[in-house]
């Protein structure tokens, strides 16, 4: 049978070995048909990964080979999607991207020059030293970098970052998270730019001379009872004695601390076949371990990566420029108080408020969105104070709430409610209570509402990519009132969705949080 490449995915013969996919002459993805696909007439259809889909519009050469490149299943020019431009998986700066082993889009080390690799090695070494001397934890090289060092004596092709782990002495997840907060504070004080990925791992962003950022993941490892846990999502049996005291390994001329028994660690991570290269390898983590790690350490940034992917991807061009109809509805009600656009996205409304002379702040949980708004504000010469607010994180909410309690604003949130889970919604009401009680500002909300027509139910996914959901206005009103707010106005009218398309039902709410009386204060 022949291999077929289409908008649906790649139809190829059933096989349980991996294949590599190149677009425009560059590696983008590896797949194993039996594991990743669905059997159908003619073979196995492996759907395109969601992260690649926004890039699959245009014409270009697609090549599917085995891992050695010797067996070519497909090599032809193909047209995908509705676009007629060249097909290429690149970021805005033109850097090539590929899908990594956990399904994220990332840059590949494949094309990394020797001097840049040297910067990565030196930066990783500096991170280990800073972690030991300033954050008080001893880190060891792990995952791909360890595998490359032990198996091949060099970094693996297609690997895009280096991974460090430290073995915590704590056994209570709350203590492990507190320790991780302390580590990020210490590393920031050392000048590292970093992202928090969960309660137990941070990503150090190392700027490289070729203009890109290398990611150095710093994962916690710990034991609870006899079970060993190591972020990403690993859990199982590995005694402390397999890790400490550390051994030393050499990678590209640099010495790194490594687990005492690196082979035992690699077997724990990659299975007993770890000596055989498999670019499409995926972890088979015990579900009970993943459930525990999710419950203990995660939950505050579940869709952050998808929003960042949207903001930095090609689909963001679909968001209209200029003020939304809701911004025009709100503007005459603002008076003298400044306004904070919560979940600002591309910043279209925040920038417009600022241009009209309102003191304006803008917050979003995606750092990419915050960067975009800052850049636009600078370009247009308007003053928008843009910052990150993670409503899933109590720390972040309390910080902004404390500031706003001392510097009263209105809160403005368009198409935010439908993006939040219940814990994040609770934090939004907490923020509103802290921010609006002292100064008398208002909360202005607009969201896609439930309605009686088709696709009108609560939770119905909407553009972009189902990241916005329809919400029942009565539930929002009840939640505001339960949090001490008063709904002053509520209307449901036809309007616009996030991408400017027609929406048969959008809800607009204006709510206030009256000052507490003595009884409430007790």
């Amino acid at each position: 049978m022949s291999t077929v490449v289409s908008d649906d995915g790649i139809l190829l013969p059933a096989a349980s070995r991996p294949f590599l996919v190149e677009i425009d002459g560059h590696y983008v993805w590896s797949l194993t048909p039996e594991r990743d696909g669905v059997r159908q007439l003619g073979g196995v259809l492996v759907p395109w990964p969601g992260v690649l889909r926004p890039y699959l519009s245009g014409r270009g050469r697609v090549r599917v080979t085995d891992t050695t490149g010797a067996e070519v299943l497909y090599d032809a020019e193909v047209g995908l999607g509705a676009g007629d431009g060249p097909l290429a998986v690149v970021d805005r700066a033109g850097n090539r991207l590929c899908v990594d082993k956990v399904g994220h889009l990332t840059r590949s080390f494949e094309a990394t020059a020797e001097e840049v690799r040297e910067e990565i090695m030196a930066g990783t070494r500096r991170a280990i030293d800073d972690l030991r001397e300033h954050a008080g934890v001893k880190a060891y090289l792990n995952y791909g970098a360890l595998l490359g060092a032990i198996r091949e004596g060099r970094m693996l092709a297609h690997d895009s970052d280096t991974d460090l782990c430290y073995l915590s002495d704590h056994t209570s997840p709350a203590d492990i998270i507190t320790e991780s907060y302390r580590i990020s504070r210490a590393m920031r004080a050392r000048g590292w730019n970093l992202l928090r990925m969960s309660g137990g791992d941070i990503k150090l962003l190392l700027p490289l001379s070729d203009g890109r950022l290398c990611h150095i993941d710093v994962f916690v490892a710990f034991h609870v009872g006899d079970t060993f846990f190591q972020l990403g999502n690993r859990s199982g049996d590995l005694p402390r004695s397999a890790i400490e005291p550390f051994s030393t390994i050499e990678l590209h001329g640099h010495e790194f601390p490594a687990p005492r028994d690196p082979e035992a660690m690699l077997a724990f991570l990659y299975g007993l076949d770890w000596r055989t290269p498999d670019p499409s390898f995926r972890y088979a983590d015990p579900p009970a371990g993943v459930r525990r790690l999710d419950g203990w350490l995660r939950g505050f940034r579940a869709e952050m990566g998808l929003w960042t992917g949207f903001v930095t991807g090609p689909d963001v061009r679909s968001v209209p420029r200029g003020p939304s109809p809701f911004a025009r509805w709100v503007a005459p009600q603002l008076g003298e108080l400044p306004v904070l656009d919560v979940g600002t996205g591309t910043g279209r409304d925040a920038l417009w408020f600022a241009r009209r002379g309102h003191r304006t702040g803008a917050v979003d949980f995606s750092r990419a969105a915050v960067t975009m708004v800052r850049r636009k504000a600078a370009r247009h010469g308007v003053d928008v104070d843009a910052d990150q607010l993670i409503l899933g994180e109590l720390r972040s909410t309390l910080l902004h709430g404390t500031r706003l309690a001392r510097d009263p604003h209105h809160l403005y949130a368009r198409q935010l409610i439908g993006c939040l889970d219940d814990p994040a919604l609770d934090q939004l009401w907490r923020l509103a209570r802290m921010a609006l009680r002292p100064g008398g500002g208002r909360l202005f909300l607009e969201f896609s509402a439930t309605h009686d027509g088709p696709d009108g139910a609560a939770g119905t996914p909407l553009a972009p990519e189902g990241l916005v959901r329809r919400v029942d206005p009565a539930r929002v009103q009840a939640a505001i009132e339960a949090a001490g707010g008063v709904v002053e106005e509520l209307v449901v009218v036809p309007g616009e969705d996030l991408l400017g398309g027609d929406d048969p039902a959008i809800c607009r709410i204006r709510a206030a949080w009256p000052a507490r009386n003595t009884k409430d204060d007790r």
Partner: protein
Amino acid sequence: MSTHDLRTRVREQAKHRLPAPVVDRIRARASLRERVRVLEAEAQESRQLNRRIAELTDVVAELLIPLDARDQDRVDEVLARYQQGL
């Protein structure tokens, strides 16, 4: 009669032919499955308290105690430093 109706009718007939103890065991098993599902959800809720405890500990230690000084310059400094460290 549709396939679905037929399947439902056959199931109902089979149920009536089963001895009562067997029906009770099936019911008990279904109820156990539901109880396990609920227990798992509750266990997950408890696990999530770890992050809440850690966040509160962090806020109290790093923000609340310094803010108690009530000195606006000091408050601004503490807030800025806390944000940089998040």
